[in-house]
C-alpha cells in the first residue's frame, strides 16, 4: 500500500534530474548552515513548498501548460504595468505590487511566463516560420524586459531576456541575424551606457577597478574575491571561513553565498559545484532534445539554459568578472521565490521528459 503510494508519488519524477537537483540542494543546506544557520528552518520550509510545486507541475502535461501560456503572459505584463503605476518602492526600486492580501513581485513570474509564451508562439507558427515572426517574438520579449529594467531590476531583466532569447535561438533564429544583432548591440553600447542608471554605471566601473573605493562600492567585490582567493585549493573547512564568519562578506546567505561556499571548500568545492550544474544542464538539454513537440523542446531548452545563466552570472559577479546584479546562485542561495521558480522549472522539465517522443526509445 505504502509502496504503491510511493510509486505513484515518484512516477512523474526524472531520476537523474532529481538526483542532480538533490545534490545541489544539499550544497545549499551545507552552505546555509555555515553562512546563516538562523535561517535554516525558513529555508527548509521554502524548500518543502518548492518541492511540492515541482511535484505538482511535473504531472501537468505540456499541452495544458501551452494553453496557460498566453493568459499567464498577459497577466504578467498587466501586473508589470501595474507595478510601474502603483508599485511599492523599496530600496529605491519599484518592484512590488501590493494586492491588499499579499505583496507580489511580477517580474519573478515573467521568468517562466516569457519562455512559455514564446514557445507557444513558435509552436503556433511552426509550419510557416517567417522573419516577421521573429520580429513579433522580439516584441513579446522586449515589452516585459523593458518594464522590468525600468523598475529598475537589471538582474531580473537579464534573466527574463535570456529566457526569451534562448527560445528564439532554439527556434532557429538565423546566425546572420544574431551576428548582425551582436554587432549593432556593440555599436549601440555607448548609447546604452547613457540609458543606464547611475548606480548601474557605478557597478560596472567598480568591476573595472574595485580598489578605487574599497569601503564603498568596491567593498562587496573586494571582500568576496578575498574570500574566494583565500579559500585556496581545499578551502578553510566548513564553518571556518574567516571572511564569512566575521561578516566581511555582504549578503552572505543570498547573492554572495558562493563566496562563503568557495572560501570554506576551495577550488575543489567549486569544481564539484560546476560539475553538478553541468550534469543538471546536460540532463536538461537531453530532455529538450528528446521532447515531443516544438513547444516542449523550446521550453525545455530555454529553462535549462536559464539555470546556466543564473549560475554563470552569479559566480561571475561574486568572483569579480561580471558587474554586481541581483542574481542568486540557483538552488543554493537563500530565498523562497527564486527556489519556487527554479523548482517549477525543474517540474516542467520532468513533465516534458515524461511526455517525450516515444519513437526515440
Amino acid at each position, binding site marked *: 500500500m505504502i509502496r504503491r503510494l510511493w510509486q505513484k508519488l515518484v512516477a512523474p519524477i526524472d531520476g537523474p534530474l532529481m538526483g542532480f537537483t538533490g545534490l545541489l540542494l544539499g550544497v545549499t543546506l551545507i552552505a546555509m548552515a555555515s553562512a546563516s544557520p538562523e535561517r535554516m528552518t525558513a529555508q527548509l520550509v521554502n524548500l518543502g513548498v518548492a518541492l511540492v510545486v515541482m511535484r505538482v507541475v511535473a504531472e501537468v502535461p505540456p499541452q495544458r501548460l501551452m494553453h496557460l501560456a498566453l493568459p499567464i503572459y498577459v497577466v504578467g505584463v498587466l501586473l508589470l504595468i501595474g507595478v510601474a503605476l502603483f508599485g511599492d518602492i523599496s530600496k529605491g526600486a519599484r518592484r512590488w505590487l501590493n494586492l491588499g492580501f499579499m505583496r507580489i513581485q511580477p517580474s519573478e513570474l515573467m521568468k517562466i511566463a516569457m519562455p512559455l509564451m514564446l514557445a507557444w508562439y513558435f509552436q503556433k507558427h511552426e509550419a510557416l516560420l517567417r522573419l516577421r515572426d521573429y520580429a513579433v517574438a522580439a516584441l513579446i520579449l522586449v515589452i516585459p524586459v523593458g518594464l522590468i529594467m525600468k523598475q529598475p531590476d537589471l538582474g531580473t531583466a537579464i534573466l527574463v531576456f535570456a529566457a526569451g532569447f534562448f527560445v528564439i*535561438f*532554439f527556434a532557429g533564429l538565423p546566425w546572420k541575424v544574431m551576428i548582425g544583432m551582436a554587432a549593432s548591440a556593440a555599436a549601440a553600447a555607448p548609447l546604452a551606457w547613457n540609458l543606464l542608471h547611475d548606480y548601474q554605471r557605478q557597478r560596472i566601473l567598480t568591476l573595472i577597478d574595485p580598489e578605487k573605493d574599497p569601503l564603498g562600492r568596491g567593498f562587496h567585490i573586494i*571582500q568576496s574575491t578575498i574570500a*574566494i*582567493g583565500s579559500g585556496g585549493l581545499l578551502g578553510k573547512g566548513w564553518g571556518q571561513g574567516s571572511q564569512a564568519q566575521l561578516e566581511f562578506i555582504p549578503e552572505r546567505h543570498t547573492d554572495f553565498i558562493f563566496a562563503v561556499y568557495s572560501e570554506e571548500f576551495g577550488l575543489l568545492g*567549486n569544481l564539484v559545484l560546476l560539475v553538478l550544474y553541468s550534469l543538471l544542464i546536460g540532463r536538461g*538539454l537531453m530532455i529538450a532534445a528528446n521532447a515531443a513537440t516544438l513547444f516542449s523542446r523550446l521550453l525545455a531548452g530555454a529553462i535549462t*539554459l536559464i539555470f546556466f545563466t543564473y549560475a554563470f552570472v552569479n559566480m*561571475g559577479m561574486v*568572483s569579480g568578472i561580471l558587474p554586481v546584479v541581483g542574481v542568486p546562485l540557483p538552488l543554493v542561495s537563500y530565498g523562497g521565490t527564486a527556489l519556487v521558480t527554479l523548482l517549477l522549472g525543474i517540474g516542467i522539465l520532468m513533465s516534458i521528459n515524461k511526455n517525450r517522443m516515444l519513437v526515440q526509445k
Partner: protein
Amino acid sequence: MEFRNPQEGLEQFRRRIAVAGVFVLIGFALLFARFVWLQVVQYDYYRTRAEANRISLVPTPPNRGLILDRNGEVLARNYSAYTLEITPSQVRDLDATIDALAEFIAIEAKDRKRFRKLMEESRRFESLPIRTRLSDAEVAKFIARRFRFPGVDIKARLFRQYPRGAFASHVLGYIGRITERDQGRIEAAEAEANYRGTEQFGKIGLEQRYEFDLHGTTGFDQVEVDASGQAVRTLARTTPVPGNNLTLTLDAKLQQIAEQAFGDRKGALVAIEPATGGILALVSMPNYDPNLFVDGISTADWEALNKSPDRPMLNRALAGTYPPGSTFKPFMSLAALTLGKRRPEQAIADPGSFTFGNHTFRDDKKGGHGMVDMHKSIVESCDTYYYLLANDMGIESIAAFMGQLGLGSRTGIDLEGEAEGVLPSPAWKKKRFRQPEQQKWYAGETISIGIGQGYNSYTPLQLAQATATLANNGVMFRPHLVNHITDTRNGEKTYIEPQPLKTLPWKQAHIDVIKRAMVGVNIEERGTGRRAFKDAEYIAAGKTGTAQMFSYKGAEHKTETMQAHLRDHALYIAFAPVETPKIAVAIIVENGGFGAQAAAPIARQVFDYYLLGKVPPGAAPTDEAAAESEE
C-alpha cells in the same frame, strides 16, 4: 517564406542544443579559470588580505611616568577613573541620547560643550567622553540601563593628576588632548605607532619637554575582529611599558616656601645649585591649577586664565623679561676690574647726579653718597659710580662682558618657551629698529645701561644663572630641572650630568672683591639688604635692585602713593653661604617697590629653609598641605 520539414526542424534544433552545450562548457571553463587564478595563483595574496581583515591591533596606552621632586615626593601621577563615552557614529540622535543619559547621570552644559568641541576635533568612529570621573553610583545606574544606549559605554581611563594643585605648575606644565600641532611633533619623532591609542600629550613645562620619556611604550592586543570592527577574541598580547619617571633637582619644600613667600604678589624666583646648575626652585606667580587641563579645560576657566590681567599662564621665570636694575651693578664692577677700567680702591666724589650733555642722571640718594669706591658702590648701591663707569667702559665692552655671562641669550634650561631678553648694544639696536635715526646708538644711552636700566631686559632665569656663575667663581652650568630619568622596567637611572658651559676668565682676586661687597650689602650698617638678613646664621652675598617702570625726569616720586601696577619692580640676587655657595637665587617681585623691602626677605626665607631647615612662621608644613590639596 519557407515551409519547414518537421524532421529538418528537429535536426536544426538538436544542432543548436549541441551549440548550447558547448557554450555552457565554455562558460564554466571560463569560471573555472577564474577560480584557479584566485585560489591557486593569487592564493598567497588573498590569504594575507583575509588575515589582515581578520586581525586588528588594538593599542593599550601605557601608564605615563611620574614626576618626583629630588626627595621622591610625587608631583604628577595617574589615577584610574570611569568615563562615560559616546561613539557618535553609532548613535542615531545624539542630542536625544545625551538628554536621556542626563536623566540619571549629571551632565552639565560644560560637559556638552566640551563634547561638541571634541567631536569637531576627532574622527567620527572614535569614542569620546561626555562625562569623566563617574561616581560608583553613576556607573551602576548606567550599567542597569546600558541596553537602551547602543554606542554609549563606560570605560576605565587613566587620568593625569597633579596632587598639589597649582603648586609648581610652571615647572610641571600639563597634558591635554592631542592637537594637530602635537600630531606634527609625534610624526617628527616618528612615533605615530607608539601613540596609537594615546589621547593626551604634554603641552607645556616638563610634561612637554620630556613627553617622549614620560609616555612609555604602547602595548598591543592582537584581536580578531568582525567586519564592523567589533573584537571577537584576543589572539596575542604585548603589554604596555610604563613611561619613565622623572626625578627633579627641584626641592618641593623649598619650592613651597618660596611660593608662599610671594603671597598674592606677582613675580618670579629661580634658585639654582651653583655647583651643578640644578634648579632648586622655580617660581612664577600667580600660577594656575594644571588639573583643569587634564580632561579638557572648560571655556570659562580658559578665558578666566587668559584674560586675567595678572597673566597666570605666563611663566615669568623664563619668559618674563625685566630690567635688572641695581642687581646689574656687581657684574658691572666685575667687568670694570676684568677689563682694567677700575681698581677697587679708586673712588669718586658723588654729588648726587651725573650730567652728560644736556641730560642729568639722578642718584637715588639726594645729595649723593660722598666719596664712593667700588665696595661702597655695591653696598650702598650708588648710581653715580656706575653712570661714570658705564661712560668710561663704553657700550661695546659692557655688551661683550654681559653676553659672556649669558645675559640676553637663552640658558638652555629643559623647559620650552624661554625668552631671550635684550642685551643692549649698537648691533642689537640696528637689528631692532627700522628707522636710521632710531638705529643709531647714542652715547647717552650707555649711561643708564650702567645701572641696569635703559634697554636692559633679562629673564629671572638669566639673572639667577649669572648669579650662580659668580658664586661658582666663573664656572657656568646649564640650568636644568631633571636630575635623573628612571626606567620603570628595571629601575635603571639615567642621570642628567651637570653641564659646565664655560669657565669665564676672571681673576679670583676680582671675584673676591665683588663677593665681599655683596656680603657687605647684607651685613654692613649701610647695606641695602641688612634689614632682611639681620641675625642670619650664615653669610649671604646679595644685591638689591629696583627696576623703574617709568622714568620720572628730575621729579621726586613716592612709591607708597602710586598705583600698584605703576610701582617699580623689586629685585634681589643672592647666594649663600658665601665661602661654599650651595644656593643662588634671583627674585623679582612685580610692582613690589624697593628690592630691599619686597624681594630680599623672600631670599632670606628660602635660604633659612635650604641651609638651616627653618620653616618660616605661618608657612604650613608641606606634607599636610599636600594632603589638603588632594581633596
